[in-house]
Structures are given as structure tokens and as C-alpha cells.
């Protein structure tokens, strides 16, 4: 199993009891509120609110925080460069290049926004099963075939990951060791090509199996989403928190 991508497991805790549609919308509203701010106090309270949701979602705290902090190398590089590329009051010098205070503030600001949004997203939406996510998106009027594509993808990621691991074991049993060589590139290329070929053949079998069970292009999506008083309380709390963050920004 690829860690984090659960198909059936619902997290417990307060967040787990909230309607999935409300959680998706809350994540978007929160992201918009945080991204629109520039004030440090507002951004820090946004990050604090996201941490609060993480606790309520009962996700494993340390692994989730590690995922939050991890960014692509190129984003880290751009943030580190910002103090040197943004004009402003010089703060310090590094290897002959002056770093500006404005640039440093901008980099900190982006870092805070990115982490707050990703943390809230993982706590609110990442804590539901990927199948529930598909159903919630369908109920939020996303196109039906996009949702089917999502459900198919989720269903087969784990299957294909197992297949990938089997192929890797087969390669290693024949003495394959990855290095920066042409041989490695060709072997990995064949690996990806083989996975694609097998995937297509698998999909032919899936379609045949589904056709003989009467598949006509869509599944009935059964779910029992119901919005109760808890959901309204949660929605109100989300609006309140977002309003407070934006109020800090304006003040």
C-alpha cells in the first residue's frame, strides 16, 4: 500500500464526522482566505488554525507535518533566491550579493501560505478515503466521467504499484543496480513501457469483465451524505476563522 492513499479507511475524530462536501468547500475557502493575506499575524494564525484542524482530524501528526514541509527542490531554490533577486533595503550580504528585507519577508510569506494551505487540505480532505472524495466531488457537481476516472485511478494505483514492485524485484534478481548510466535509463524506460503495456492489457480485461456485467458508462454512486447540525456548526466555525484571518490582515 502506498502510505497515505487509503481507499476504504475513514479517519475518526471530529473532522471524520463532518460531511465530506463541507470539508472540501472549507478547504477551498480557507485556502482563498490565507492566500489573500500578506500580514504576518494573519498568516501565522492561519497556520495555527490548520494545526488545530490537524489535531481534530486525528491524522498522524509527525508524518503529516513532514509532508507539509516537503516541497519540490525548485520551489525551495526559488524561495532561497528571493531575498537576493528582490530589490529593497539590504539586510545582509552573502558571497557579495545583498539580500533585501522585502525579499526575505516575501519568501517567509510564501512559505507560511503554502504550508498552511497544504496542512489544512491534508487534514480536511486527505483524512477522508479517496472513494469518499470521489463521491463528494460528484455531489459538488464535478463531471461524472471525471469522477469515474478518479475512482478508476485510485482503484488501480495500488494494483500497479504492486506490479511495479514485482518488476523491480525481477530486475534486482538479475543483478540490476540503478546508477547514472545509459543501461539504467534503458532499463527504467523498458520498465515504464512494460508497465504501460500491461496496464493496457489489464484495462482490456477490466472492460470485458465490466461489459458482461452490464457496464454502460457509469456507476450508480451511492452515498448517504446528510448535512446535520454538526456540519452547520463546523461551516460556521470555518467562516468565523477565515473572517478573523482576513480581519487581522485588514487591521
Amino acid at each position: 500500500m502506498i502510505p497515505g492513499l487509503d481507499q476504504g479507511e475513514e479517519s475518526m475524530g471530529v473532522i471524520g464526522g463532518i460531511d465530506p462536501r463541507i470539508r472540501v468547500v472549507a478547504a477551498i475557502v480557507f485556502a482563498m482566505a490565507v492566500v489573500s493575506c500578506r500580514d504576518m499575524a494573519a498568516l501565522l494564525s492561519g497556520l495555527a488554525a490548520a494545526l488545530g484542524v490537524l489535531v481534530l482530524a486525528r491524522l498522524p501528526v509527525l508524518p503529516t507535518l513532514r509532508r507539509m514541509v516537503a516541497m519540490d527542490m525548485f520551489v525551495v531554490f526559488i524561495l532561497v533566491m528571493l531575498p537576493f533577486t528582490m530589490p529593497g533595503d539590504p539586510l545582509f550580504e552573502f558571497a557579495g550579493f545583498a539580500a533585501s528585507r522585502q525579499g526575505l519577508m516575501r519568501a517567509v510569506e510564501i512559505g507560511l501560505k503554502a504550508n498552511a494551505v497544504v496542512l489544512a487540505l491534508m487534514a480536511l480532505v486527505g483524512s477522508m478515503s479517496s472513494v469518499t472524495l470521489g463521491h463528494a466531488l460528484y455531489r459538488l457537481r464535478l463531471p461524472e466521467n471525471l469522477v469515474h476516472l478518479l475512482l478508476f485511478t485510485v482503484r488501480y494505483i495500488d494494483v500497479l504499484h504492486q506490479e511495479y514492485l514485482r518488476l523491480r524485484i525481477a530486475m534486482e534478481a538479475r543483478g540490476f543496480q540503478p546508477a547514472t548510466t545509459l543501461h539504467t535509463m534503458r532499463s527504467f524506460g523498458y520498465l515504464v513501457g512494460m508497465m504501460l503495456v500491461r496496464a493496457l492489457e489489464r484495462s482490456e480485461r477490466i472492460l470485458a469483465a465490466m461489459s458482461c456485467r452490464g457496464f454502460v458508462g457509469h456507476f450508480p454512486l451511492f452515498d448517504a451524505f446528510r448535512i446535520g447540525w454538526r456540519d452547520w456548526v463546523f461551516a460556521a466555525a470555518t467562516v468565523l476563522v477565515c473572517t478573523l484571518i482576513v480581519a487581522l490582515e485588514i487591521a
Partner: protein
Amino acid sequence: MHIVDGALSIPVVAGGAVLAAAGIGLGLKRLTIENIPATGVLSATFFVASLIHVPLGPSSVHLIMNGLAGLVLGWAAFPALFVGLLLQAVFFGFGGLLVLGVNTVNIALPAVMVHYLCRHGIGAASPNRAMLWGALGGALAIAFTTAGVAVALALTGNEFVPAAKMVFFAHIPVMAIEALLSGAAVLLARRVKPELFGALFQEKSHA
């Protein structure tokens, strides 16, 4: 190449969302009963491929393979790669939420461009020639993706321009790796199962 939330200006984020929605819409029109399972399974394959780390000197890079995705899926690459990016953001915390549109365009638009530029070459009589077109597609897709990231950053502000340029040049080794891998993958698929590049997702202009 996941841009995070908070880095780009609001017009760039909104523009990316509109373009992504249009591309996804065009891709979804091509999803029929027959090819929804195939698209889903192939989308899962590209998701798993992005977990493969290829050693590059002392470090390693993870694969993107969007050129290959475009060659196989055509416009269906838009919804397929969007689904992958959505799952990565929600469950792994890669990238962000509001920038999902920009990130989708940066990954999927190059895939579609490669489809139109290199798809005919994949059908060449000799598998070795097909391999060269596959390699070209793999390199071009990463070049376009990096250029797209640089454009999104440059449209946001001049302070990003030097870093964006350096990011582009830093990705030249990645282009080489993706070219070699895509070429090898195309060569194998052409020998084992040429239908992979067959009629399932062929765009009309080559029909």
C-alpha cells in the same frame, strides 16, 4: 514540478484554473465507455511512474513522463494528469490547492503539444525511428513544462525571473533522462504492443 500556493499572483492562478478547466473539458469529451477503464489504468500507471526515482549523480530525480502520457492519451492526458495531481496534493501534500489549475496546465499542456508534434513519428515503420521520436517527445515535454513554470513565475513578478531561468537550465539533465526513458519505453511498446499508440486515443488530425 509542483508550484505551491501563495507564490503566484491571483490573475495567474485564475488564468491557470480557466485553462485547466478548458483542457480537462476537451479531454473528458473523448472519454467514452470503452476508454474510461483504459484511461484510469494508464493514469494510475503514470502516477506510479512518478514515484520512480532515477539516480542522477549523487542525487536522484523522480519521473514525470508527461511526454509519454501525451503520446498515449492525447487530450485525455489533461483529466488523467489532473487526477494524479489532485491525489498528490490531497493525500501527499505535494503542490497546493488553488494552484492546481496552473500545475495541471504546466504538466498536461506539454503532453498534448507533444502528442501533436511527435505522435506521427511514433507510427514510423522502423521501431528505432519511433524511439527517436519518443525521446524527442520526452525531452520536449519537460522543456515545455519548465518553460510553463518559468512563465507562470515571470508573469507574477520580476523578482522571480532570475530563479526561473536557473530552474530551466537546471532541468536540462532531467530532459535528457526523460528523453532516454521515453525513447526506450516507446521502443519496447512498439515491439510488444503497438496498439498502445493505437486508435484508442488518437486525435483526429492523424486519422
